[in-house]
């Protein structure tokens, strides 16, 4: 498959570099003026921006390797996310082979289904076959201690970290008339709006946030942050409509839905972390925590975005 037109790709990369450079320069000036030693907030801001650079470079490299690059990148993201999820939840020694199978069989097979565009099996392999066979294996092992809790954690782990994440590269398999060979740009649109929305909600929350949205789950999410962030990311979506088969208005609505799902994903991820008594999922990305801390919004947004495009635009 050909790469998407170089024109759009270049605008995209130039835009991202401009935004990140502005962020780095701003953080640099703030750090330069601030009293030393730097406050934890400022140190964390710099770490986060640096990690964004790394993430943008990684995705850009995958982008230039085309469909194979993108599929492999998201398989690796699934691996990191699954590792964090399984580490955090309860398991017993008798779960060893089921856990091993999640990494060694389910991840490669699900991404192979993405690669071969076998849509029928792609949608049911995990929610039907794995859902039934994993607890069956656990039962055959004969260890019934906290059985439901263990199998539920395993189901959640692969649904969240493998099934939903695999819907991002699955966008490459959609056939949108008049949009042939440009599907990689759909991934760029999804990632930029959803991740942008996370940042925008954070900024609006810091600037105008007064009313906590769900204080028991997350002490940092406010109504002002949510509304401002969603409005701004819808606008961002409309601006990026040149990447997509959508009109600017359609792009705004699609972005709004994706970002709202992303927000809910962040909320659910916070609830899980709170329940397990941790602040971050892991320590993979300096300043951000783990892979799931960064991908939680994408996990909820990707399947809804995928099915929206598939239902309304693809043949």
């Amino acid at each position, binding site marked *: 498959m050909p790469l998407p037109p170089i024109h759009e790709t270049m605008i995209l990369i130039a835009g991202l570099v401009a935004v990140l450079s502005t962020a780095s320069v701003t953080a640099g000036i703030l750090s330069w003026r601030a009293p030393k030693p730097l406050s934890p907030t400022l140190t964390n801001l710099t770490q986060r921006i640096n990690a964004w650079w790394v993430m943008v470079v990684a995705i850009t490299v995958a982008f230039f390797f085309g469909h194979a690059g993108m599929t492999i990148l998201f398989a690796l993201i699934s691996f*990191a996310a699954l*590792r964090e999820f399984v*580490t955090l939840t*309860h398991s017993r020694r008798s779960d*060893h082979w089921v856990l*091993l199978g999640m990494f060694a069989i389910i991840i490669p097979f699900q991404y192979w289904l993405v690669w071969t565009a076998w849509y029928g099996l792609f949608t049911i392999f995990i929610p039907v076959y794995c859902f039934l066979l994993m607890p069956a294996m656990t039962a055959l092992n004969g260890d019934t201690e906290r059985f439901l809790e263990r199998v539920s954690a395993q189901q959640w782990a692969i649904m969240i970290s493998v099934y939903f994440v695999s819907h991002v590269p699955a966008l490459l398999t959609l056939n949108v008339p008049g949009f042939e060979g440009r599907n990689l740009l759909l991934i760029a649109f999804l990632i930029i709006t959803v991740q942008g929305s996370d940042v925008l909600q954070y900024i609006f929350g810091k600037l105008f946030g007064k009313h906590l949205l769900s204080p028991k789950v997350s002490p940092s999410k406010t109504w002002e942050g949510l509304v401002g962030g969603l409005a701004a990311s819808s606008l961002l979506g409309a601006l990026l409509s040149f990447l997509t088969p959508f009109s600017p208005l359609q792009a705004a609505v699609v972005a709004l839905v994706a970002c709202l799902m992303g927000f809910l994903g962040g909320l659910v991820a916070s609830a899980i972390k709170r329940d397990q008594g941790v602040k971050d999922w*892991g*320590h*993979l990305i300096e300043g951000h925590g783990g892979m799931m801390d960064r991908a939680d919004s994408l996990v909820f947004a990707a399947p809804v975005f995928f099915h929206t495009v598939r239902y309304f635009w693809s043949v």
Partner: protein
Amino acid sequence: MTKLHIRANTFTLLQTITSVGLSAMAWVVTGVRPIWNGSQPSERQRIYFANHASHGDFILLSACLSEKVRARTHAVAAAEYWGKSRLRRYIAEDMLSSVLIHRQWTDEAENPINIMLSVLDQGHSLILFPEGTRNTTDEPLLPFRSGLYNLSMARPEVELIPCWIENMSRVLPKGQFLPVPLLCRVVFGPAVTIAPGEERRAFLERARQTLLALDPRPDRDD
């Protein structure tokens, strides 16, 4: 008599390849990272003592040390297990440069303390699992055997650093050979020293409690 393979302060080519390869593998599988909580990385002579649940423990701990420190640090392993066949002995001694000791010994030449002291006397460091065997019980940490105390009495200038290895019993449980990828951390705690006049049992229990206190998630039950 146990043959000691320590001749130089650097690794052989085979040992360098093994050590770099295993550390890279440890990172891929467990994303291992050291948490220095009471001590700092240092090239001074030390005995790192850790909880033991899996063959991967020593690999994880070494992966947290610098290449230079790793070349002068030897894990103490049971000769009953690692000396059983020529292949195992080759892996333990020639590839991993560990020191084999006999848990049951009669011949004075096999006295584990003397063997470990001879390594320390060459200026090298040790990795010791004072529980004496891999822990498969529900207890987080078994009682310590006396080696730690005897070594420290004989060489008080060597620092004793407690190292809590997290999650490794879930990654590679005893009896399994394929690891499940799970995140692991190694928490390095403050050095422990024998207090003046401190009795053997009391010291070993105190060292054990210091190690146990490093567990970042003590309420976990798996």
